[in-house]
């Protein structure tokens, strides 16, 4: 803070004269010589909605632009695949990696193979989604409880971390012993693997509101419930969607792992993968792998689109 000397002040009798500045040593922001600017009121919006319409027309182009890299990547994979099949592998070993048209063509043209495979995929999708829904509900609930007091967070957070640090494969045999080898156990694996990203992202989001925003609620004597529903939870929505996207991807992995190990009852796509491997049914195996990959990609795209739609519209924030 500099000492000010009133004698430094330059005097301008005519307020409109250019450069008329009230210089003040203690004032970090010098006053500009445009007194007219301060009287001018706010301009009216000409058309606040105009931006929305132009955005809609370019939507298709944007979707194309977004999908181009994916298409290029798929083309690249196919090219390498053909290369390895025909140029690297000798004919006698080509069964290890049959060229794509044989690998997929054989299975796709065989309804007896594709029927059970699609049914298995359907069962796996169902299990993954049930597991995801349970993980979302439990994860958000757990995070909300933690967000309500420092004590609750200190006590409850370690459990979530422990759950996260135990590799899922180490738990799977135990889950089988306790819960059997059918649907319930598979759902539980999905829940366990999808739970942590929901908990941690939701908690992060619930704690993301600024101190000033909390002060605003305090000054207006907001109840705990009002603070949660009108500040913490809405502030957490973008993070919850990030968590949801991660959890969805993980629950796909979870169901494949669970299917693979828990073979009781009708098989899921992961169970079929194991069967095909044991029988060395290469075309079926490749098709099943491609289906699980497609499953994962579709789930990811659905949740990424949901994320963009909800968070982009209401929060105007580009998603990570």
């Amino acid at each position, binding site marked *: *803070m*500099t*000492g*000010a*000397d*009133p004698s430094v*002040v330059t*005097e*301008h*009798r005519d*307020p*409109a004269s250019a450069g*008329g500045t*009230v210089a*003040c*040593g*203690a*004032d*970090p*922001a*010098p*006053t*500009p*010589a*445009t*007194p*007219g*600017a*301060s*009287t*001018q*009121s*706010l301009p*009216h*919006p000409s058309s*606040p909605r105009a931006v929305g319409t132009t955005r809609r027309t370019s939507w298709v182009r944007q979707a194309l632009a977004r999908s181009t890299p994916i298409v290029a990547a798929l083309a690249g994979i196919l090219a390498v695949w053909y290369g390895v099949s025909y140029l690297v592998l000798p004919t006698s070993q080509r069964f290890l990696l049959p060229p794509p048209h044989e690998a997929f063509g054989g299975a796709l043209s065989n309804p007896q193979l594709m029927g059970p495979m699609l049914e298995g995929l359907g069962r796996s999708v169902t299990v993954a989604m049930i597991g995801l829904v349970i993980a979302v509900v439990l994860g958000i609930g757990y995070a909300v409880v933690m967000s309500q007091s420092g004590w609750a967070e200190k006590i409850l957070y370690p459990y979530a971390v422990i759950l996260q640090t135990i590799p899922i494969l180490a738990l799977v045999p135990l889950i089988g012993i306790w819960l059997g080898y059918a649907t319930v156990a598979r759902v539980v694996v999905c829940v366990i693997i999808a739970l942590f990203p929901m908990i941690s992202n939701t908690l992060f989001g619930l704690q993301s509101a*600024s101190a*000033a*925003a909390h*002060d*605003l*609620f*305090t*000054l*207006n*004597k*907001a109840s705990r419930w*009002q603070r949660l529903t*009108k*500040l913490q939870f*809405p*502030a957490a*929505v973008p993070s919850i969607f990030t968590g949801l996207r991660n959890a969805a991807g993980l629950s796909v992995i979870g169901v494949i792992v669970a299917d693979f190990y828990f073979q009781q009852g009708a098989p899921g796509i992961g169970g079929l993968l194991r069967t095909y491997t044991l029988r060395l049914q290469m075309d079926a195996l490749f098709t099943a792998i491609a289906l699980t990959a497609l499953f994962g990609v579709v789930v990811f795209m659905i949740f990424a689109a949901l994320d963009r739609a909800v968070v982009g519209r*209401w*929060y*105007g*924030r580009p998603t990570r």
Partner: protein
Amino acid sequence: MTASAPPREAPTRTLVLDRVTKAFPTGTVALTDVSLAIAPGELVSVVGPSGCGKSTLLRLASGLEEVSSGSIGVAAASTSYVFQDATLLEWRSAARNVELVGELRGVSREERRARAQEVLDLVGLQGFEEQHPRQLSGGMRMRVSLARALVAEPELALFDEPFGALDEITRLQMQTELQKIFRLKRFAALFITHSVSEAVYLSTRVLVMSGRPGRIVAEIEVPWEYPRPPELRYAPEFAAITGRVSAALGEHS
């Protein structure tokens, strides 16, 4: 001065601080022996070097922090607080941000809609009610913040360097705007700023604080009636008063 005024406080004072000291658990003494009184229709500015406890003063007056010693008396049915940042909820439109106060205080939907519209008009935001904070400029965001403070019809308004983050032109506009509102509503106001010219232009009285621990070292009356024309900032008598404030600041920083 009416008979219905609360008997506990002197009826002409909305905010009274009596020898207030604030020390934090870390040992930092933010304020020592601060006394001030603000009457309805007074806009009192506090200027001081950064870190002198200006914001702490406001947090104490609002009840967000407790005093270490001394006492604070507030005789206002409603108090509003304007933050350094606009502090808007980004998922709510301008109108819904203003309505939040009513929601928290249990005002009916129709009434809080009507009152939000009223104050948004007052701060010059008609036509922008449905815009979200990210679609608004810094100045317009601050206008929403002002509207949110006004919707509670405060008898005491606390301002924590509200225009500090704005560009110079917007800042001057907001000063004119606030002055217009103040002339209309005549609440009691405590306005924290680090800008001497802002303090002098807006206030009926300027208090100068020393560096930490903050004390009030000078009190300078600003004589002009409202509305004050923007050109006043370039008048020699304005320079004379800002000079006195700056001199007091310079001696004690």
